[in-house]
């Protein structure tokens, strides 16, 4: 799994690509852990448009990310879920514990409106 990230002020949009299964989740955690540990990252949006599948291990990484971000009063959101992943979120009830948005822009508007200008400017 490849993960690219872009910063918009204090907000990071991370975009994993690939299956978040046992192998992919290791890469996902390795990519996200520096972000959730960084004190100046006040918001993290995960652009899941490139993720066709997520297993319980991948969801566990998201739970760790959420706990870490929330422990320092930072926000986290997930956006752009593919239909199958959206179903997995619903069945696992992760849609109840993570903020989920149709698109990255919607997530930024909700958790970090100040970053929207920079995002729209590309």
């Amino acid at each position: 799994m490849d993960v690219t990230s872009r910063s918009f002020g204090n907000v990071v949009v991370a975009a994993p690509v690939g299956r978040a299964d046992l192998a992919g989740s290791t890469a996902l955690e390795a990519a996200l852990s520096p972000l959730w540990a960084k004190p100046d990252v006040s918001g993290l949006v995960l652009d899941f448009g490139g993720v066709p599948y997520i297993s319980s291990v991948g969801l566990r990484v998201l739970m760790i990310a959420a706990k870490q971000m929330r422990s320092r009063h930072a926000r986290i959101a997930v956006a752009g879920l593919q239909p199958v992943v959206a179903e997995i979120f619903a069945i696992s009830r992760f849609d109840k514990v993570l903020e989920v948005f149709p698109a990255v822009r919607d997530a930024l508007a909700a958790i970090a409106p100040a970053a929207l200008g920079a995002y729209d400017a590309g």
Partner: protein
Amino acid sequence: MKRIRFWGTRGSLPVALTAPTVRAKIIAALRGGSGRTFESDADIERYVDALPFSISGTFGGHTACVEIETGAPEYVVCDLGSGLRPFGQAAIARHGPASPQTYHLFVSHVHWDHIMGLPFFGPAYIPGNRLVFYGAHRDLEAALRRQMEPPSFPVNFSVFNADIRFVYLEPGQTHDVAGMRVTVKRQHHAGDSYGYRFERDGRTVVYSTDSEHTFEDPDESAGFAKFFRKADIVVFDAMYSLAEAISVKADWGHSSNIVGVELCQLAEARQLCLFHHEPALADAALATMLEETQRYEEITRTGQPLRVSAAYDGLELNL
């Protein structure tokens, strides 16, 4: 092995159907039949059988107790939850009190919901019956005796007239019991719990309840995949949603439907049976969970289909 029969399927504590819940089910059934005429009792039964299970039935009920019908005359039972009481009554009704029987009783762990049925197990009071308790907890006998000590219970363990024996089963080993190969696996739960893999006549049943899967150990999923390998039925602790199991209820010692599907798919098991239901969940919620789990299996399937069922008191699954 021929079939398994569920006598108790709830986790933590027994759940009784209440009058308002029965009333709601009757109303829902009558609403569905509005304007319809029934020509006979058989017609009524066909209508009832076609209703959703959450209206026509209930998941129940009693705490953990599962009978494995091996094809041999001796009884094999997993756990001594409150479902042990109706199991014992049925056994006595079948043979009569004067016909001695042997009961092989496998105990996953000694938390109360898994042993509370024993003081009400009729066959234990009948001379000539033989009860053999199996477990991997060194304090199994002490725990069973303690729950029948004053002031918690009016009579103590010594009132049992059956011949009683305790057999310690070494975890990680395979043992020959009652014509079966029984493999014991330690599971993550407060005070440990143990799963049992029963094999006989080319059929395999795995009983794996009160087992939390954290996957902090990279070998954990491989270990359980081996334990569940090509099982005909895996009875699996699916008490919580995955989100609950790894957040607010982490370290509570239970698992989820999602992990059950994943492990069974990895193991190429044939059937996953959701078990140890959360007592707060009503029948409709459990029915929804079953449908969602079947859907999850469908969208994540890579090999042979995995059948997914949900245990209820009275369910029989043929092997």
